[in-house]
């Protein structure tokens, strides 16, 4: 019926090929760039090991304490995992049973993630250092405790485990709570109608249904515990408590730095990290990808528990309010001692802080590198999420998915050592410049950017894009006029989240910093090492303030919902 039956195709059509070369070229550039950022630091570490050879192995094992570092790492990981799971799951279960008017308390368990780790850890130290800790001083007033030091010594392994566990419980809480909210409430109602008490319904129905979420949360906690650096470094160094992560740092901080030994010590962490990323992909695979989060939740699965807000409030008090209060007191005091003297409170520590050389520079570097790192990660993450979602190149998509998630699995301290080694030698020498901080931040944020944008893109569906394409718009116009505007909430939320995480960033920053390039966290560490406690407190408060501003922006950008819950 058409004019053409056997006629050859119109010559004009021959030029119209799909997959134009420019798209393939762009993909190659993207994969090469991401591959360089993510893999080169790790590969360079392997090269260092190969070059170092047997000598490096000797150094790694030599010196005292490798065995005890391994034991401490295992104890710290498992102990903090146990604490985090119990606290996190318990709080999550309570958070979906909050009485009306108290539901805002559900946000409290997330606060420890939002407060900079270095700030809260120093806050804890000010509370529980054996002699001058405010909380210890208070506890000594309890009958039969007494003494002139203790009862808590925050610088010992058990308390390092406890503090790490509290920090990790926030992550467990976020995942488990989201999982509980997404549970089909009908399943729980059915259990209760069938005669199970709320407690038994929780144990027999809800927990088994949540098994994938629990496994995932435990996996993340395990990774974070294995790579835990900040707490043992700040609290354990003076008392000789060492884990693998801090040992890696020592090898790179010594002169001359021994990268091969650092890499060897870090290799179990590296292998475990990669294995967990791959395992998670295998276990969750495409399932999570296509689960629609209805947003309608199990708010009314069972009757509200009247006392549910109490543990959440206590947690927030212990984990956030008290450390922050300790920081405020120390920052306002002329010197740090167990006696609080409000009459002597002064702002002099802040003025002195900003007169200290490079402090202001460090704040500016932090802000600049965080913004630049977040924006660059956003661009690369958007492109990666697009390739992963569209599956036009399925194999490349799967590869990219693993690639961008590696920085989440490999501990920051291992990555930090890799960055330091890779960027202080040709072909790309960035060490000593602000650029190295930006590149490191960009790499570390790739998983967060890609995951949140991928989630938003999946939620967007394909019809909006298809409608634009059939309306005559090419891919570029479709992305600029349709996809980006529709994802602007997710984009804003992702940028703000990354900004918050980056202004906190301590571990990788500490490894790649140099005398001329410092960020807030590393400057705080220097002040801490020098024993300038009131200035440490002032610095911690400055960091917390900047973070808080970022969180406010994040919540505004993502329409009030917590951006952390979006991950």
């Amino acid at each position: 019926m058409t004019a053409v039956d056997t006629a050859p195709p119109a010559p004009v059509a021959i030029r119209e090929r799909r997959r134009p070369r420019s798209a393939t070229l762009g993909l190659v550039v993207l994969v090469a760039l991401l591959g360089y950022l993510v893999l080169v630091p790790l590969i360079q570490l392997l090269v260092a090991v190969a070059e170092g050879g047997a000598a490096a192995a000797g150094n790694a094992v030599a010196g005292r304490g490798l065995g005890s570092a391994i034991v401490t790492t295992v104890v710290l990981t498992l102990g903090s995992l146990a604490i985090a799971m119990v606290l996190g799951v318990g709080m999550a279960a309570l958070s979906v049973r909050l009485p009306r008017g108290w539901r805002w308390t559900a946000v409290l368990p997330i606060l420890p993630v939002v407060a900079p780790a270095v700030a809260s850890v120093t806050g804890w130290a000010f509370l529980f250092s054996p002699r001058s800790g405010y909380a210890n001083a208070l506890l000594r007033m309890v009958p039969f405790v007494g003494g002139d030091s203790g009862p808590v010594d925050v610088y010992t392994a058990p308390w390092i485990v406890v503090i790490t566990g509290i920090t990790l419980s926030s992550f467990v809480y976020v995942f488990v709570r989201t999982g509980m909210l997404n549970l089909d409430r009908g399943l729980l109602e059915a259990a209760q109608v069938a005669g199970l008490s709320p407690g038994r319904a929780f144990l027999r129905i809800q927990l088994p249904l949540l098994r994938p979420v629990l496994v995932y949360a435990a996996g993340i906690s395990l990774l974070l515990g294995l790579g835990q650096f900040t707490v043992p470094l700040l609290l354990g160094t003076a008392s000789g408590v060492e884990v693998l992560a801090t040992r890696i740092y020592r090898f790179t901080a010594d002169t001359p730095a021994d990268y091969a030994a650092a890499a060897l010590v870090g290799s179990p962490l590296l292998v475990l990290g990669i294995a967990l990323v791959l395992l998670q992909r295998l276990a969750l695979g495409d399932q999570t990808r296509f689960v629609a989060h209805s947003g309608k939740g199990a708010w009314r699965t069972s009757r509200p528990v009247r006392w549910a807000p109490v543990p959440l409030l206590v947690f927030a008090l212990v984990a956030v309010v008290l450390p922050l209060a300790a920081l405020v007191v120390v920052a306002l005091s002329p010197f740090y001692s167990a006696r609080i003297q409000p009459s002597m409170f002064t702002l002099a520590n802040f003025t002195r802080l900003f007169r200290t050389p490079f402090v202001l520079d460090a704040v500016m570097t932090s802000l600049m590198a965080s913004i630049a790192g977040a924006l660059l990660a956003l661009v690369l993450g958007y492109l990666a999420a697009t390739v992963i979602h569209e599956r036009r190149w399925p194999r490349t998509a799967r590869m990219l998915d693993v690639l961008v998630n590696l920085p989440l699995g490999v501990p920051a301290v291992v990555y930090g050592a890799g960055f330091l080694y890779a960027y202080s030698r040709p072909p790309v020498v960035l060490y000593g410049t602000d650029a190295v901080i930006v590149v490191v931040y960009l790499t570390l944020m790739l998983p967060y950017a890609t995951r949140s944008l991928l989630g938003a893109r999946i939620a967007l569906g394909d019809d909006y894009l298809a409608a634009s394409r059939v309306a005559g718009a090419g891919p570029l116009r479709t992305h600029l006029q349709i996809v980006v505007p529709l994802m602007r909430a997710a984009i804003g939320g992702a940028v703000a989240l990354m900004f918050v995480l980056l202004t906190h960033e301590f571990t990788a920053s500490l490894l790649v910093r140099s005398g001329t390039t410092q960020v807030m966290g590393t400057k705080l560490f220097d002040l801490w090492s020098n024993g300038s406690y009131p200035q440490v407190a002032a610095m911690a408060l400055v960091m917390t303030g900047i973070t808080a501003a970022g969180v406010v922006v994040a919540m505004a950008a993502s329409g009030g919902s917590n951006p952390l819950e979006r991950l």
Partner: protein
Amino acid sequence: MTGVRLDAVSKIYPGRRGRPPVAAMDGLDLDIAPGELLVLLGPSGCGKSTTLRSLAGLETPDSGRIVQGDRVVFDSAQRLDVPPERRNIGMVFQSYALWPHKTVRANIGYPLTARKLRKPGWVEEAAALVDCSELLDRYPAQLSGGQQQRVGLARGIVARPDLVLLDEPLSNLDARLRDQVRTQLHELHRRLGFTGVYVTHDQVEALALGDRVAVMRAGRIEQLGTPEDVFSSPATEYVADFVGFTERLDVTRTTGGWEAAGRPLVGLTTVCSGEPDKGATLRFRNDDVRVLPRGTDPDGLVGLGYATVLDRSFLGRSVELTLDVVDGGVLRAHLAPGDGLASAAAGDLVTVAIAADRVLAFGRGRTSASSTSRAAS
């Protein structure tokens, strides 16, 4: 206005985790005349949506050729696949797919701006055609489902494309709105005469809207014809089931005629040819089943035997009896509420019959069109 032709277009999705591969299009040939509205009808998974998306350029077939007017838009032999934005088409989606951040005016006008067409008045004209003139400055979220889909229609036709593709456009609307928008769509096609392909799983929509209806199954066209043809003379048992011949009875051929479960079927002689011992399946509509008092001689009808009433439910316009035909399976009969036996109760024994010209016979186990024939008395 142009026509569209598909030549041996195939798309096979590889089987995952041990499942066999699925053919969404299996050597599909189709010729759509200029100005024709062709309906692709079939259940989910039959390949109708893949066919539509291949016409749009949103999906790439494995092989074959698609010619739109005098322009080849897909040809696997030449590795040619024109992207959707260069095919001059319009499309209407089941989900409406109106961009929530753009006003109705910007939504309808997008195909014009994207193609850099300066056509003053076209947006207003398209909006007027679907009764959306007052909605131009609102956002999609402020519209009802019916209004959204009318805007979707306006966006699909505003640039006067060569081909309009409609992907289950009425499926998200509730029943009353669906009828309304369907009527409007029919009227719109009558006035504009665009070439269109309409995908649906709803036989009522297909019959009401199509100039021709193509019933699809497993990537192939099972029957292609006018709505009247498909409705009254389904070519295969599959099509029959799909257009309302929902009741079935297996019969075998004997020397004297036909029997069901060893019981001769009085009054049924058919022209169903070949393989007499293989048997056949009778297909008929549930409102053609006649229910008679027990023992009545089904004079002039094909007697299907005795049946026990299992259940009775009131459907408004009719009464549905679920009948257990002795040794013949379960049938449903729709009776007028005034019918004498419409008040039958569960447990009653009745006689079931059907007019011979209301029965289709299909050779057992075969699906090709040649095995079918209308039963005749």
